[in-house]
């Protein structure tokens, strides 16, 4: 089936089964390997992408459903060489170790920051960040430095 969608701001055309997972289309057909598979069942969040302004697990999206829709992957987060505030903060704060969960975290954390989903002035801001990112499993960091990075990024963009 021919499917036309937008990925990272560019129009894209694929001819695949509508049942094919968006994750596999991104990685195999579009060679955008930044989005990772960690579990195939929507548990780990390594496959997170932004779909029409919401963050979703791309392993649970059938590409047929994406016709006419807009996808942003980690490759589309930066503006050319200018990293998104979350990406900069993850590097500066040490929030990436092995890095395999990092694209999914970058996608979800940038969504949280950009959409102002957390009141960063609130005393419960860190807990709320944790709640919103709980769909992204990291095994390396213990999460602490990632939360630090999200708070730092939010401060930078004036949240």
């Amino acid at each position, binding site marked *: 089936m021919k499917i036309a969608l937008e990925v990272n701001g560019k129009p894209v055309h694929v001819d695949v089964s509508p049942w094919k997972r968006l994750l596999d289309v991104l990685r195999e057909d579009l060679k*955008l*390997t930044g989005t990772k*598979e*960690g579990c195939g069942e929507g548990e780990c969040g390594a496959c997170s992408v932004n779909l029409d302004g919401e963050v979703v697990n791309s392993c649970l999206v059938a590409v047929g459903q994406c016709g006419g829709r807009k996808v942003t992957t980690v490759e589309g987060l930066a503006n050319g060489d200018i990293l998104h505030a979350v990406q900069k903060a993850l590097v500066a704060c040490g929030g*990436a170790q*092995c890095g*395999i*969960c990092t694209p999914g975290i*970058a996608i979800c954390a940038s969504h949280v920051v950009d959409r102002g989903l957390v009141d960063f002035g609130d005393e419960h801001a860190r807990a709320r960040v944790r709640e919103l990112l709980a769909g992204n499993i990291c095994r390396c960091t*213990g999460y602490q430095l990632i939360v630090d990075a999200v708070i730092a990024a939010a401060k930078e963009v004036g949240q």
Partner: protein
Amino acid sequence: MDRSPALVVGASLPRVDGVAKVTGKARYLDDLDVAGVWHGVTVRSKVPHGVLEGFDRDPAFDWSQVVVATAEDIPGANSIRLIEDDQIAIVPVGGTVMHVDEALAVIAAPTRALAFAAAKAFKPRIKALPAVLSIDDALAVTQKIYGTDNVFKQFLIRKGHVSDAEFETHFARAAKVIEGTYVTSPQEQMYIETQAMMAQYDERDGTFFITGSMQCPYYVHKAMKHFLGCDADGVVITQSVTGGGFGGKEEYPSMLAAHTATIAKKAGKPVKIVYDRDEDIAATTKRHPSRTHHRLAVDEQGEILAIDVDVVMDGGAYLTLSPVVLSRGVLHAAGPYRCPVTRIRGRCVATNYPPHGAFRGFGAPQTTFPYERQIEKLARARGEDSFAIRRRLALRAGDSTATGQVLGLSVGSDEVLDAVAAVAGHPPERDGSNSNGAPVKRGRGYAFYFHGAGFTGSGEQRLAGKAAVVATTTGFEVRSSSTDIGQGVITMFTQIAAGALGVEASRITVVDPSTAHVPDSGPTVASRTCMVVGGVIDRAGRALRERLETWGRDHGMPGASCDELGVIYATQHGELAETVTYEPPPGIQWDDLTYTGSAYPVFGWACCLVDVSVDLDTYEITIDRCVQAVDVGKAINPNIVKGQIEGGTLQALGWAVIENVIYKDGRVWNASMTNCIVPTFADAPDLETIIVEVPYPFGPSGAKGVGEIPMDGPAAAVANAVHDALGVAFDTLPLSPESLARGLGGAS
């Protein structure tokens, strides 16, 4: 700007590979685009013990589309060389299946879907045999599955006594004896990148090229020479960017390399195998489960008279690394406490489970849990404060361990205790309620513990790890086989080399670990990478700097910087390499037969504080607070060290409370990420990390190790906190709500 080495080492330089990782540009094995690559899938046993009689192929499947490899296609020897050569790579027809999910065949196809379909259509016939599925059955030898007694390895370490009869006298005369049985659970490493490997066979010269997610390229290399029947040049092993290991990619990659190499050769195509998550959980190594019986005898004043440890670990179906896991376990089993008389017995038994293997801590978490629970019970029995007792009994410089090692250098016991005491504050209120309206009981627990850095005894000497620092026309290279698996090796080596050479960090390139290009530095395990390999790189860098500066002076460039000299020299004469082999510090005496002497050149030290609340309606444990103070000697990169401490701590908290691997009839019952759970952001408290530095003169800039120690103690601290909260002892991991409900005398 002052570019002196002192400023590079000790600075929290952002990770060298950080930008690649946050932009998705870092390429892991499954991201590599190789023309014409096929996909491999493994056919596995569903039976824990049996004889493979043959295979039935579904005639409705078009077998011409795929390639099937069985044991007959193995180029060399059908075993994975490690400590012994006992583990079969692919069970041959007529051979014995030793565990569920053991590999029986490997199938490759142009697409993953086709390979999976073929694997479903390729049905093994196995005649089942009775299986050994518990430590007790193994010890009772219900079936002989290894040797005559099912014991892979045993140790007996005596200190301060000669016979068992003499040993018992210390218990007979004790004022108090604290005794308990402690059970620790298997644990899945759950690296977020599953096991992945790709092999290509070059028919022209018979060379295998194997790339993949791994910790130890030279372990794989050694195993493949044996498996493929080739010499050192016949196989090249390269580590790809690795998404987590934690020990789970120490030995298992050799198995996966064997499978991909076999099928790649047979198919005449490059083949990659990337495990599904469920398969990875089910078929690969787990932390060894253990059961320990621990007795400790004290006198009226509360001095320890004797410690008796009897630990049994379940090794699974093959020997693999069990002897070393058991070794580290027994060497830590008496704990960091003063005790003149100790007897430590350890056994690792064979069962028909998938082999257990390396996981951060490597036997030490299993034996730390019992001793820290015992100290807690001792404190309670004596009415002594549980922090004060640890302070009172702690080993210090001049004291000796259970192997008779007299502690000398870099003994951070007081320092880590001080660090925790300084921030501990008052314990939480015992009684309260939570946001669900349920009553809670709160408690505080401590753990005080240590972890030997590097390989045991003469291990490092035997390893003779090498690394090279090389001047090239474009800067300096570090060549070692140490792998960055997330713990920041690339950045740490960059800093160490930059510091040693006196150059900017940007002038250093850490070369990708490929056996074609780097010397064998030893494996990336045992918390040795910084202290041992980093130390070698430091020496190599300093030596190279001296050579270049001497050359500069001899050739009319006395004022040139090391940086400039490196480029000039390489331009004129080609690259200049300084290769250094590790030399252990002098005076380390170790007896492998009696297991006495200096087990490790130095220990790391740590103290952990945990505050918990237990919900009395649901028995769920919430970790309200966790403090870890860890003596690492010197933090080469404090931010990276902090990240290591926090990551290891959360893995330990997870092991204590929510993680488990549950088997049913020999197979992993909870083999999915949904049911084999690890902590999420929402499960973790804000972790308080205190880096303590008691420098070790034989480590680079004083550094020891940090990778594993954070894993060893927190589980005991959690159990101690729960004991404090509820007044009931829980000595089996995990401290699940179900076990708390049972232990409190449940309503059933």
